[in-house]
């Protein structure tokens, strides 16, 4: 059954957080890719995460093979982190309209990086476009903030 994403988490997922995408190949070798934006669908059960074309060949191939992914959303300011697991539904090129979403994310993430000591000139150099848009249904959400409760499933 799909997990329901509450309001506060939707806000976190769509903010300037660090987005980490985990996939795996047919041999169960995992791959780590950085995402550059996310959108929570109105049904609060599906998300679309954006992966830069320049760095996501392996991730896209993995998703094509088995569809399993894990997406971590982590605030670099206080390490509040959640991990969403699910199965991919669709992979397509991100649209020009979605480019605005990615740009907003890039700016917001850049400000967070600046606060933690990464100069803006560095964060501006991150390659964020063009992107693949990966839509998936969330099946589980886990708390992953560092601490003794990391790994706890958030009930739907």
């Amino acid at each position, binding site marked *: 059954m799909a997990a329901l994403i509450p309001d506060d988490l939707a806000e976190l997922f769509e903010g300037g957080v660090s987005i980490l995408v985990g996939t795996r190949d047919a041999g*169960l070798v995992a791959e*780590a890719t950085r995402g550059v934006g996310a959108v929570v669908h109105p049904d609060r059960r599906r998300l679309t995460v954006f992966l830069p074309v320049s760095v996501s060949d392996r991730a896209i191939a993995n998703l094509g093979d088995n569809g399993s992914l894990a997406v971590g959303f982590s605030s670099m300011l206080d390490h509040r982190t959640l991990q969403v697991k699910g199965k991919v539904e669709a992979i397509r090129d991100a649209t020009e309209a979605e480019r605005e979403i990615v740009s907003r994310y890039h700016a917001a993430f850049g400000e967070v990086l600046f606060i933690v000591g990464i100069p803006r000139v560095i964060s501006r*150099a991150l390659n964020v476009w063009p992107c693949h848009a990966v839509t998936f249904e969330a099946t589980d959400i886990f708390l992953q903030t*560092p601490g003794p*409760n990391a790994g706890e499933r958030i009930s739907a």
Partner: protein
Amino acid sequence: MIATCDADGVPNITYLSQIFLLEDDRVALSCQFFNKTKKNVLVNPVATTQIYDPLTFDAYRVVIKYSHEEREGKLFEGMSRRIDAIATHSGMAGVFRLLSADVYDVVSVENVAGFKRPGDLPSVPQQPSAVQYRSEMSGLQHVSQRISRARDLEELYACTVEALEEGLGFENSMILLPDETGSRLYAIAGRGYGESGVGAEVGLGEGLIGTVARERCILRVAGVGAELRYGRAIRTSVQRATGLRGLRPEIPLPGLVDAQSQMALPLVANDRLVGVIAVESKKTAAFQEWHEAFLDIIANQIASAIENMTLREKDEKDEEPAVPLPPRSEPAPPSKCEAPALKLRFFKSDDCVFAADEYLVRNVPGRILWKILRELTARGRTEFTNREFRLDPALGLPAIRDNLESRLVLLRKRLEQKCPQIALVPTARGRFRVDVTAPLELEESA
């Protein structure tokens, strides 16, 4: 970040907190909590990490294969000390600790091409070249020469922190000594901290400096801000999970409040801790391995110098006057200055002296100051000898290695910073004079 996969094909992705290079083909990851990553690699050992250069944010994809874990031994202890140092700052000592050092073989390393757009980016300082090493060796030589020319402890402390900036560019540094109980360290000299340097205290085992003192190890942290945020995240998690209100308080950084890089080394002579030297910077990853090696050389020289000068103090006891100098035949004339009276309070419970309601000094330096002030106001004495303090049982100086000279240095500096109306002026070896430029009101409290 680290990506793993379980036996059923479900991937997992999370942040890596610590990764250490062991050899060219081996790394160690810290395991603070038994989590999904650890569970996954125990059944499916290959993991993929992505790590970033802290200065350029260049990304590297490093594929690793789990080998084994270590829960004791040199590697475990070394990683554990770093985590303990950060944990104490967050009040998480004992809660946030290393469970195991997980060793992985490196399978492959590649730069993540396409992670950044090519273009004009600020240049990043490279590892020192041979030419730069010659320049840095000159800097080391400069520091070493300044230290060797110090004639007494006060000069040794002062010229060390000055020379560290002049010769090696360490803008913020401090030297700390253990107090008479051995449970706390106090800063005897500092550079780049203004008035807040001298007298700053750190508990043994607290933070980076306290951990270095307790473990007698070298510690270097490249991203202090990130480490503290991690520690605070755990603190918040623990509070939410347990509802505990009695967690230990967070300990502020003793030097720069926004330090990003810290490095501290123990000063050890004759297998005894004589102090700690600490440097820090607001820049991330400011200190490299070669800085550690250079500072280690300096630390050994400083430790030997402190030990030798302290032992020389002991040998010179016989040269000091055997009895205190007699008071004046009549009381000193009242000060003719129009400065307002300075109120000083001595709290017997913890030997604390406050000047104008502001903390000044405590413990042995506090007891020394109060003795001086009472002699001054009651009997008009302005001349004192080190020996009389050594012989006074009320001051509680240890019989061996009393470090009296260092305590007087601390007292002198604290007075300069916080209470300039009172000055201790050295007049000869083992002797000093008290100059006062305001009327004094003394009060003792329980």
